[in-house]
């Protein structure tokens, strides 16, 4: 019985991380209709940033978070200007999704192999004084780095919720999502709104990278694996339903750990795919979808 509780606890920790991984991806896809397949690669880039900040300057990964966020925000702005902004000229949303899928898929190869050339394909992880230490709560052990990851995930999700629902900038984003022409007629600078939201999305990838490198490990080509987790979480939450991303990640984490108990470790990814297919078959609008006002 204890092993069941322990696996479930680990599932929750992993699930929060899945949610964090999917957050920036869902922001770009759900709000701006850019499908960023390079999101996993940006996560790895963020992981490398906090790895090198620790190795070279000795800054603790959780303290280096603001630096990583700022750096990744700038990278996101450059990425938007170079790769994504030309797509706004396309006539319809479907073409924008398809072209952004192709362009970011090409970017994966550029970024992945650049990282391989610069930093070798070695697997890297961070060792700090508290790595591997655990905290015992209600008879179940939680790793400290995992708990830190959950804390960061919830904090970041709350901040994003506040930005989207409580500020004028968030209103601009939502208005531009609903109707680009009407939004710009109302005096919203759509280009600048998109630019900043893309920066935020890539910065969220950086945060996820910091958590990944502190509790797990990164290698230059591991981004693709995290990306497919992000896909599954986004489908579970429902497209455009950003507030449900962290709960959806936790649901996926729990299902995966339940599957691990039954099937064994090597089929862990297959469980996520099965969940993905079942959700698409039964409830394609997502588990957490709310009723729309119109219907």
């Amino acid at each position, binding site marked *: 019985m204890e092993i069941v509780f322990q696996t479930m606890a680990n599932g929750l920790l992993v699930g929060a991380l899945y949610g964090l991984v999917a957050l920036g991806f869902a922001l770009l896809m759900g709000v701006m209709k850019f499908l960023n397949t390079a999101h996993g690669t940006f996560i790895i880039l963020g992981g490398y940033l906090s790895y090198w900040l620790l190795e070279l300057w000795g800054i603790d990964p959780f303290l280096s978070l603001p630096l990583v966020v700022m750096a990744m925000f700038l990278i996101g702005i450059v990425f938007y200007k170079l790769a994504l902004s030309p797509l706004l000229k396309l006539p319809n949303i479907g073409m924008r999704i398809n072209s952004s899928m192709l362009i970011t*898929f*090409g970017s994966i190869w550029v970024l992945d192999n650049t990282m391989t050339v610069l930093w070798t394909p070695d697997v890297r992880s961070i060792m700090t004084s508290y790595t591997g230490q655990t905290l015992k709560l209600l008879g179940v052990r939680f790793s400290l780095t995992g708990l830190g990851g959950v804390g960061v995930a919830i904090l970041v999700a709350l901040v994003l919720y506040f930005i989207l629902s409580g500020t004028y900038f968030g209103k601009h984003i939502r208005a531009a999502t609903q109707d680009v022409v009407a939004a710009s007629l109302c005096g919203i600078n759509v280009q600048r709104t998109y630019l900043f939201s893309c920066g935020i999305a890539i910065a969220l990838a950086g945060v996820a990278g910091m958590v990944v490198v502190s509790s797990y490990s990164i290698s230059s080509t591991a981004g693709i694996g995290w990306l497919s987790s992000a*896909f599954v979480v986004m489908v579970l939450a429902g497209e455009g339903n950003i507030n449900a991303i962290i709960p959806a990640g936790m649901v996926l984490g729990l299902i995966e750990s339940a599957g691990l108990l039954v099937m064994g470790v090597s089929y862990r990814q297959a469980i996520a795919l099965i969940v993905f297919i079942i959700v698409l*078959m039964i409830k394609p609008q997502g588990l957490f979808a709310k009723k729309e006002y119109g219907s």
Partner: protein
Amino acid sequence: MNWKKVSIFGVLVMGFLVPPLIWDLGTSVLNLLSMLFIYIILAQSWNLMGGYTGQINLGLAAFFGCGTLVTHFIWKAGVPFYLAMAAGGVAAMVLAVIIGLPTLRLKGMYFGIGTFALAEVCRIVVGGTFHRMLKMPSSYVASYSLISRYYVAFVVAALAVVVVYRVTHSKLGLGMVAVRDDETAAQVTGVNTFKCKVLALFISALLAGLAGGVFAYLRLSFHFIHMMFSPVWTFEPLMATIIGGAGTLAGPIIGSVFLVILSEIFALKLGEAHLIVFGFLFVLVVMYFPQGLVGSLDRIRPWFRRSWSRRAAREGQGKP
């Protein structure tokens, strides 16, 4: 199919069929050409789904790897190769059913992300299951001849081109193009869009599975079987199709030739880094030449024709 196209196709076929019988082309050339044919099959497979039907497949590697794996095991069990290759194609189709039925009912990105996740899951699960190197028994290795590999690869590639031509010039092909151009409008005018997409996926997966079978025939041993599912097998055919021109018959062929020449130039000199160059090239083509090489040629051709006709007119005027 008009006579001009048939004769061009026939000349190309003869050009690849006859020379190996007369001259000894050498191992490296035959190997390169066989790989070129495999790329052509994969690129045509991607083209049918991505170029004609407008459904971006980011997991072609899943179908290719499935074809390779199934062909390898069935052939090893003693079944004749041609049956084993067919089984590989059918296995890839079964895999396509699993991902195609749930995702193709929905519009937008679901097919792309579904196939991507499928390929990734296959890579990890297969990598976790097969730890040892796979190889054919030594009797197969002793009877290995590269020339038969060359011909099998060529025949399947020619078959793939003919199949894509026939499909795209049928009622199904018109439906596929209608789905690509405007899915809602196609639905309203009575096209069964789901059926079109699923049939296109079936044919596409069958071709990719056959390409995997050819690859299993070409390479008798695999050190890391999960590398068959590596995203490179998606990226390179995709790049060949887009650079050549998606949604055209000649595009994937021209693109594959271009890709194989490029990798000969870059892969030897740059190693891993050649994929950086490929990635940049791919992104630039998607952004600035979405019609690819074939589309650019089409844009240039009227300009040439005009200057030719002007010259012909001038010469005509000079004559008494």
